[in-house]
């Protein structure tokens, strides 16, 4: 069950003349980078017809990992589907292809003093498709919300090769079902995003960052929540305890110069006169953004184990404490970046030789359940192949709805299987998707790709 010349050629044709389709020497991974929406959709259609697993660009390392579970894997790379389709500064909307790097969107918007107020990791290098699929966010999520809140519409390709369009270039809509927002955080397991329409905002005229050292995380959280209770709404409010420097509470205000000055003044009784230089402020935001992620974010093999905790302001301290204890069993000390006003924290340790991240995740979830709720996930999506640990799954009725959604959109479970723990239908395992116990041996990592048919 390897890629035959015929299928490789068919996918190559779908990728288009300027597109790319290369198969690895062992003929088990086919890297395809189509240049049109239709080409991408056709590749999905072929994959469904042939029951070939598709890994999208979100998982650049995932194809190798997937090959441990599946006979053949198409790695679908949308980076050539990039560029701004339409930018309407007067309507504050931008329509882009999914492979467009966030940086390109920010540059286009900057021309009209606008921006997309999200700051996911990797310095705007991620494509907008990746950001949306992971609902990825950085410290500015406190002030501006996650990418889902800025999403107005999408063009998506479903595993059966259909291209669907929902939402549009209007900033408000109550028309039909929000299929586009459903893609945010779905890890491209329902459909593949091809284009997105996003709402932009006016770029703030000024910014100020205040940072103050604290003895411990508890004091820092308490201080941060006092800042949250001030009348001014921060763009970011976090505690960085990354073991590189001291534990610090950082607040960032953005807006008009006057508003920023007033907010800074009002935060003084809590944080003191600790406004930092703009460059230092930007550095702190970057540290919060990229904390717990290896340099470059997408480099395989070197990642620390990073858990993202989802809780609520009143419980974040307890949640942190419980999960820290779990992680300390593997490595001490545990670094953290905490966003207390939205109840989110990242905790990370360097990856020790023999630690199983899933085991740590399981234990963390069990601890959170004991506290009465909260979520934990590994920051980097990985293939669990049904091994996703309980217990922080939605209740069974919601789970059944999710499974039916997946089933109706991707009946053969070819699309990024295993990233969310939906049981695959029995027939989807044969012959291309063997159950884990019958999986082919993992191919050696790092084998280079060759053009299809060679």
């Amino acid at each position, binding site marked *: 069950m390897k890629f035959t010349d015929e299928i490789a050629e068919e996918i190559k044709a779908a990728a288009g003349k300027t597109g790319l389709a290369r198969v690895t020497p062992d003929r088990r991974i086919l890297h395809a980078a189509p240049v049109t929406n239709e080409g991408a959709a056709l590749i999905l259609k072929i994959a469904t017809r042939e029951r070939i697993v598709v890994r999208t660009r979100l998982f650049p390392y995932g194809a190798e990992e997937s090959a441990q579970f599946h006979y053949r894997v198409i790695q679908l790379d949308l980076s050539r589907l990039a560029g701004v389709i339409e930018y309407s500064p*007067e*309507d*504050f*909307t931008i329509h882009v292809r999914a492979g467009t790097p966030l940086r390109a969107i920010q540059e286009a918007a900057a021309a009209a003093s606008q921006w997309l107020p999200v700051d996911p990791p990797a310095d705007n290098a991620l494509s907008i498709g990746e950001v949306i699929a992971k609902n990825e966010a950085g410290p500015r999520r406190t002030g501006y919300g996650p990418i889902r*809140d800025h999403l107005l519409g999408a063009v998506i390709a*479903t595993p059966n090769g*259909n291209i*669907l*369009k*929902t939402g*549009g*270039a*209007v*900033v*408000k*809509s*109550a*028309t*039909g*079902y*929000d*299929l586009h*927002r459903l893609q*945010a*955080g779905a890890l491209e397991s*329902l459909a593949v995003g091809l284009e997105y329409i996003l709402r932009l905002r*006016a770029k703030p005229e000024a910014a100020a960052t205040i940072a103050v050292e604290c003895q411990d995380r508890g004091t820092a959280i308490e201080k941060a*929540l006092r800042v949250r209770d001030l*009348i001014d*709404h921060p763009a970011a409010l976090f505690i960085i305890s990354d073991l590189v420097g001291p534990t610090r509470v950082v607040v960032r205000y953005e*807006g*008009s110069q*006057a*508003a920023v000055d*007033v*907010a800074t003044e009002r935060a003084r009784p809590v944080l003191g006169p600790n406004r930092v230089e703009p460059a230092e402020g930007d550095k702190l935001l970057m540290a919060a953004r990229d904390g717990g992620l290896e340099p470059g974010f997408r480099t395989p093999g070197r990642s620390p184990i990073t858990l*993202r905790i*989802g*809780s*609520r*302001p*009143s*419980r974040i301290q307890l949640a942190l404490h419980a999960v820290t204890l779990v992680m300390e069993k593997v490595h001490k000390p545990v670094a953290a970046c905490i966003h207390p006003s939205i109840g*989110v924290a990242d905790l990370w340790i360097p990856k020790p030789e023999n630690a199983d991240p899933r085991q740590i995740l399981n234990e963390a979830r069990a601890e959170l359940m004991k506290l009465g*709720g909260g*979520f934990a*996930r590994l920051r980097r999506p990985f293939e669990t192949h049904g091994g996703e640990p309980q217990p922080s*799954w*939605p209740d069974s*009725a*919601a*789970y059944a*709805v*999710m499974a*039916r*959604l997946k*089933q*109706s*959109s991707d009946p053969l479970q070819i699309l990024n299987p295993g990233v*969310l723990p939906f049981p695959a239908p029995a027939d989807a395992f044969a012959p291309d998707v063997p159950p884990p116990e019958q999986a082919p041996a993992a191919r050696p990592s790092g084998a280079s790709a060759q053009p299809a048919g060679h």
Partner: protein
Amino acid sequence: MAHSTPVPTSHADPVVQELVAALGENSVAADRDTLLAYECDGLALYKQRPRMVIWPNSTEQVSAAVRILHRFGVPIVPRGAGTGLSGGATPVENGALIQLSRMKRILDVNPTDRMARVEMGVINADLSAHVARFGLAYAPDPSSQTACTLGGNVAENAGGPHCYKYGATSLHVLSLKVVLSNGNITELGSPDADPIGYDLRTLFIGSEGTLGIATEAWVRLIPKPEIVETWLAPFASMDAACKAVSSIVASGIQPAAIEILDDRTIAAIEASVFAAGYPLDAAAVLLVEVDGAPIEVGRDGERIRGICQQFGALNIQFARDEDERKRLWKGRKGAFGAMGRVAPDLYVMDCVVPRSKLPAALDAIREICDRYKVRNANVFHAGDGNLHPNISYDGRDADETKRVLAAGEEIVKMCVALGGTLSGEHGIGIEKNIYMPLVFGAGELDAFANLRRAFDPDGLMNPGKVMPAALCGEIAGAMKR
């Protein structure tokens, strides 16, 4: 309307018998007189008598009722206050109406987390009134907020004037307790951040009662702004008012609300109990509100005034105190009510265009309405490009009603042609389900039908709403059973 005294029911109906046994005599009605009051919602153009009305008082009662209805294959229509304007709560033939008005408890307010747990029959304005003591507010503020329920708001993803800054309902609901069409109770989303799995909460919000019945929610509360300033700027032309809006938005100022009312709306308001002192000689007025820190509000207010003057606004009114602010808003919030006095019936439309297309859309609306000889007035959320063309008519006049509907159809098509869409906040319901193919192809409609089936495999939830019945065959499916 909930009944506190027992209501007569039609005991001949076995479904009613079971419902009465499960929920009690005073929670079910099937008599003609009671049913008459539930024939339509705020869209009086369409009427259908339900088979029965049910008033549960808890999630468990909703679940029990739904299990019975599911077993008998009776279609289910959830209903809040019935203020919906797209016919979403219009009963379906032989169907049950589940009225959530008895579920109006505010169960928990957590000021630290800025959240509240509420039942879905809570009236929108009651929540803000309740949490005001904590310096908090619930942001979505539909103009119907003194009557509509949070459940109806969730189902329609309701907006309101202040949604320009704060966003519509979907940004303010963290989780929902939902009864699915088989009676199962589930939780979508979570008050804790980042729940795992697909975002079913977002999908449910705006689904118009077609995916299940929301019974409770954790909602987000926002701190009340430090100060608020409200301005009313009259313009000699609608075009100038729209240009002023574009210029305000482009300047980077983020007003809390930015609304336009045209001359005919002003005339109706000033002749009604909602009279707010709007100038009768203006072609349009712009109602703008800014909120936040005093220094910023002062500065933004000045800039807005400057922009309005630049586009020819005269005699700009500024609300000097809360009473004046309330007066200025009274006209806007009462606009539909005021227009209701112009003729026996009012068709309140709702569509959206990109903001830059507002002047073109408004010109086209006037032209269309003049051509069909129907009386139109406009009041709209200008910042969002969300139009409410209102047409006053007499429903007893069949010819006029026909012209109203024909004009409505042209308006919808025109908005879509300008890059807009069918609805900004009132939803599709039965008013616009036939227009869905204008904006969606067969593939999208098919995906919507699949999505509905994932929640409601038997097609019992609000069949025929949102999607043209013929396209997904839901009513037929439900009736067969």
